[in-house]
């Protein structure tokens, strides 16, 4: 038996013996999470395959995958701003442009 699975089974048995109910064991790519409650108390345990600090902010996303090319003739745009930022890089901050993106116009 996988050592972690045995550990989960043993902890589950210990929790039940200690009077905890509603035992929930959830395994996903982030590891295995066990939680249970007893009256007004609770216990939670996490087995992590990869120790990572939890960041305060989580984000993600992507551009739409496009199968066909759009017939784009004209787009609303702010002309001349890139020249202004090159002349005055502080403007980028005022415009809320991420620093990592600036290398594409400098």
């Amino acid at each position, binding site marked *: 038996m996988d050592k972690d699975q045995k550990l989960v089974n043993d902890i589950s048995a210990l929790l039940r013996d200690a009077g905890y109910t509603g035992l929930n064991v959830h395994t996903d790519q982030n590891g295995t999470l066990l939680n249970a409650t007893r009256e007004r108390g609770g216990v939670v345990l996490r087995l992590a395959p990869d120790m990572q600090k939890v960041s305060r902010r989580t984000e993600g*996303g992507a551009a739409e995958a496009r199968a066909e090319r759009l017939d784009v003739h004209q*787009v609303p745009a702010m002309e001349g701003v890139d020249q202004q930022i090159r002349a005055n890089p502080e403007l980028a901050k005022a415009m*809320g*442009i991420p620093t990592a993106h600036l290398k594409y116009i400098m």
Partner: protein
Amino acid sequence: MSVTSTYSFIQGFFNGVFVGQNAVSAADQPFTESPPGSGILVVHRPNGENLVDLGKVINTNANVGMVAKQLIAAGASLTSGLRVQGTPWISVPYFSQSPAAHKPFDMLAKVNFDFHIETPWFCSDIDGTISVFLFVFLDSQKHLHVTVDGTWFSFEGGAPFCAGPASDALKAAMPAVRKEVQALLPQLTSAIANVKFSNIYFLPGDGKKAAGAFVQNASSDASLGLLLA
């Protein structure tokens, strides 16, 4: 009546509170706009400007209800209205995944809303924002098109153990979000499907034309100016 609008952005370009000042003239004028060198954008708006207040079109009771219903089905709740904001491509969070997809200062419309997820007792609750970026353009026949360009979510909370599963669930939900929004877009352009335009530009807020000063929020509303071909 033509209008010269001067927009002073206090919290950044097309972001947050701004002060507008409109000067109205009986004489017509060609469309021009000055680059926002010092956080001030001056737009000379001709007589023939057609204005589309995107906030008014998108933040409807029907759309808010649809989003709220989808979020409830996903175990979350809607905690804001639907906001619309003009944003340059270079400021879009997924820009670095494909920088050449647009020109850096092409403007996209960011439609976003806030959500809340109640988590199990051992995690902090989650509060975040889902954004759908719309690409607006004229085709070679000078007709207006609006399409979903991409999606982004961000949230805080979920510590110590619930942020990962919530992130996975949001990533899984994004294709459905894109599909729902894409289905709404034909309504935005159906009334003007056969109209030809020569120019298209973004304005912050509702695009007010009345003379005088006003204060609005560029993070919650944006408008499109369209000039007939």
